[in-house]
């Protein structure tokens, strides 16, 4: 059984490149193709990856207006919420807030409203006022308070 130590094998290493018995260029090209595919895939993942979660644990700053609680001499507590923005007039008193008023013309969309026409023509007769004002009848009436 021939054995070679590491030193002996290193001693036999040729200083020149020797031809190999397979298509080394095709082998290298295959590896280069895989490496290029991985680079493109890595680049895609870097762009498409989800946002880093390093900010977890930091809550957004939301300034809540705490109600001011005042306690009077009788022990009653009054909660007053601070108004955010108050317009101040020339005299230092808060001026009434100006509320813009707009008049909107609303046009009903009749298409979506059910037809007002009665379905049955007999209802037309029924809907007609059955009593009309009769001046002569009113004069003859005993009811004083009618008008």
């Amino acid at each position: 059984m021939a054995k070679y130590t590491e030193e002996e094998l290193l001693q036999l290493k040729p200083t020149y490149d020797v031809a190999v018995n397979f298509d080394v260029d095709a082998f290298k090209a295959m590896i280069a193709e895989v490496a290029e595919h991985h680079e493109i895939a890595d680049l895609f993942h870097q762009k498409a990856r989800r946002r880093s979660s390093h900010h977890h644990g930091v809550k957004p700053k939301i300034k809540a207006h705490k109600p001011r609680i005042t306690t009077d001499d009788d022990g009653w507590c009054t909660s007053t919420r601070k108004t955010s923005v108050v317009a101040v007039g020339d005299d230092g008193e808060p001026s009434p807030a100006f509320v813009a008023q707009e008049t909107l013309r609303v046009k009903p969309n009749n298409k979506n409203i059910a037809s007002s026409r009665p379905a049955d023509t007999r209802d037309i007769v029924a809907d007609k006022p059955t009593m009309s004002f009769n001046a002569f009848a009113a004069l003859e009436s005993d009811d004083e308070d009618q008008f």
Partner: protein
Amino acid sequence: MSVEEVTQKAQALSVGDNEERKTVLTDSKDFDLKHPLNSKWTLWYTKPPVGDNESWSDLLRPVTSFTTVEEFWAIQNAIPKPRELPLKSDYHLFRNDIRPEWEDEANSRGGKWSFQFKVRNPPIDDLWLRALLAVIGESIDEDESEINGVVINVRRSGFKIGLWTKSVRQAPLSKVGAKFKAVLQLDDSDTLEFFAHSSANDKNAKPALVL
């Protein structure tokens, strides 16, 4: 047997040839006498998958075979080094026609010593070369040949080198493991583990041997 002895024996075989045969020692460029190895060795490469429709059998492919020291160096100098390989690549160097798979009859009753380099930048090209030289030179093996092959895995978690054996016999494997640990220049604090291939599917399996 030293290099000189092998060279002399090889030259003695050329009976009737009065012209002195040139070896790599006498002529590094035009040598015609080569130093034979004990076995034919086959280099395999696992190509990383780039598509969904590639099976393991498509990805594992033999690259070339060699039987002499000179052929080994020619191949070693020509192919990309482990650090130049893309992730998920493997180099396998196996004796004769043994396939680098558990299912191969020569491997089925064996196992592997393995170590994963988790340090940031190990001198992996040099360590892999040392492992190759120890395997093809048979300096790591016992008298009863235990070594089937050697494998390097290129992974994101780190390079991993494994030495595949044909059996799980504790006595010879302990000697082989100790030599392998020296070849990989591992410290005493580094742990080299041996797993039988029969336990490869068990994720909770414990190593059969630890050095």
